[in-house]
């Protein structure tokens, strides 16, 4: 199977969908002439032209709102946020307009928009550029939220997102853009709302998503080699819709749970997961549900310390040992 970077996989998904459906347009800051702030859209302008690949001013409320309006008419815009952190200046457009317009119109209007871009810490850019808003987004009925961890998932999920008739928010990660992985050849689609067991195990279930999948897999290897602990890693891939069934199946197998997430702890995705697991698999649990999250403070700048603020393999290892103790 060919290997591609996460960045290339997203680009291939965009190119394939642009080719398949003339209603698809890619818009955002620096997506065209500059070839993408993170080079995700590199070469797309040359291939598809300025009507399909559109540079926008730095004007998130304006252009995201514009994309939402266009999507109501049947255009299928894929909007790039240079950082998902900038969602806050377009909050009204994203979470009042895109999330609610179908409901408030009694189902008369669809909003088939995709908003994508990186949402992660760990790059020493300070608190304003390091938000991970998947919990905030997923708190709004009417939207779908995707956080892929691998190149293959990024491609397959983005293609599903673009074909989806509901608004889909697609959260990437700048630290994953260069990560290589196998991507199936030909039409590769991953349905939204389907978790993936990235590693099978019997002693502990780690439920995670995004870059924390990589940390969890790294920790799982050490746990197996050095501690003889067999860890199952469940990658949610999509936050909403949520594949809780795959999580519960794994809990029924291992009876112990650690949630790992690059989220601030309060009312996080993990909070929701912990509620659902205790509610639906209480009798399967041999101990309390554990969680490893970002240390609860705005993102610190200091490079070596930021690594410690976020989940990392060592922190996952420590948390896993506590969860099975």
């Amino acid at each position, binding site marked *: 199977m060919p290997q591609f970077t996460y960045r290339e996989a997203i680009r291939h998904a965009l190119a394939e969908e642009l080719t398949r459906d003339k209603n698809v347009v890619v818009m955002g800051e620096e997506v065209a002439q500059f070839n993408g702030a993170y080079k995700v859209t590199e070469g797309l302008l040359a291939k598809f032209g300025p009507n399909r690949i559109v540079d926008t001013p730095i004007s998130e409320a304006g252009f995201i709102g514009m994309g939402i309006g266009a999507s109501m008419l049947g255009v299928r815009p894929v909007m790039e946020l240079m950082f998902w952190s900038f969602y806050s200046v377009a909050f009204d457009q994203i979470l009042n307009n895109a999330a609610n317009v179908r*409901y408030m119109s009694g189902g008369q209007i669809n909003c088939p928009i995709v908003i994508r871009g990186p949402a992660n810490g760990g790059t020493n850019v300070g608190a304003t550029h390091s938000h991970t808003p998947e919990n905030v987004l997923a708190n709004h009925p009417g939207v779908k939220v995707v956080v892929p961890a691998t190149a293959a998932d990024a491609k397959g999920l983005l293609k599903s997102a673009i074909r989806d008739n509901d608004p889909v928010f697609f959260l990437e990660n700048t630290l994953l853009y260069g990560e290589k992985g196998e991507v199936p050849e030909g039409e590769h689609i991953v349905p939204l*709302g389907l978790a993936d067991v990235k590693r099978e195990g019997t002693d502990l279930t780690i439920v995670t998503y995004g870059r924390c999948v990589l940390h969890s897999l790294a920790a799982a290897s050490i746990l197996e080699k050095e501690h003889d602990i067999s860890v199952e890693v469940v990658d949610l891939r999509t936050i909403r819709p949520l*594949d809780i069934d795959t999580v519960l199946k794994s809990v029924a197998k291992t009876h112990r749970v650690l949630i790992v997430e690059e989220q601030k702890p309060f009312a996080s995705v993990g909070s929701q997961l912990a509620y659902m697991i205790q509610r639906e698999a209480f009798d399967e649990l041999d101990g309390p549900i554990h969680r490893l999250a970002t240390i609860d403070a705005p993102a610190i700048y200091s490079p070596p310390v930021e690594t410690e603020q976020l989940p990392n393999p060592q922190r996952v290892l420590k948390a896993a040992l506590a969860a099975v103790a």
Partner: protein
Amino acid sequence: MISPRADKHFTVSKIHRPSVSKKTTATAEKKAVSPAPSKAKGANPHAQAPINAKLTRDAKIELHRKMVRIRRFEERSLRAYQAKKIGGFLHLYIGQEAVAVGCCSLMGKHDHVITAYRDHGHAIAVGMDTKPLMAELYGKATGCSKGKGGSMHYFDPTRNFWGGHGIVGGQIPLGVGLAYGVKYQGHKGAAMAFMGDGAVNQGAVHEAYNLAALWSLPCVFVIENNGYSMGTSQARSSAGELAKRAEGYHMAWGQCSGHDLYEVRATMDKFLTEAREKHKPAVVEIVTYRYRGHSVADPDNTYRSKQEIEEYRKTKDPIQVFQNQLLSEGVLDEALIEKIDTEARAEADTAADFSEASPFPTPDDIQKDVYWETDNPSERKSQGRLFFD
């Protein structure tokens, strides 16, 4: 004392176009369009504007009827609100009818409308049936949004009406998106993005102006200036002339009276034609007045005088102004005026009776119309849970 109102200056509609020469500054030409010659002294020059001159007698009667229907619908809804049949907010359009009716009467197949929360007039103007509109206010399942949107959230995409939006200025980027869609899909049409005078200070509005001008999108931004952003007068909220801000984006702009339906049509026709034919966006400020409070919850005794309201009602009421115009043209007579009014009152009562008799949505309906996928389960592609408890 009557507060100074900007519309005293707008006896003639004005149109400003950005200079085409790069050597000149972006200052708009301040040349007022000369009114067409009138036959009789004191006659309305806008009646002779081509877009109005070509109206048939029946079309003129229908324009009048639409304004009366909006007025009676809203008066009936106010009574229902006072009788506690309607919850939440009720922002009445009474006094502004000529704006929505005039603008929407110009719509072609690929023209679109989006507005803010004072949306009853626009909904009726684009042709929505008043029964589901009233039922929506009552929160009934037969409402135009199945009782899920309420007064501020009327929609009818089959009539190119995209709401009905509650956040001041938040709909304006969507309006630019409609214009983008029209252009992208290769249609000849324009979007009218309506806002109140209070919206002009929202950042999203300026972002939308910039995008429309930058990308030559066929969007006409319509500022319905009723003088007050809620209870704050224009003088206390906005610096400078509202539509003139278009100059900062090198857009054409205009001002006209919203008390005269002919003037609204004559002014908007020019800008809509430019938008449709040449993808030129513009900002049009239509000066109007609301007789009721910001919403029904507004006691309306803190920021303007009763005398001011009365003055408008006596001299500038858009229904009265147009009615007098059509009387002078011999289109209307007293009997027909009476008939139209009686029918409009009966229609409003019928809408209220329909709403009264309609069922409320059920708790089972709460989670419908949230996702396209769950409403179309046979076509669902995603898996997993979409709703939580």
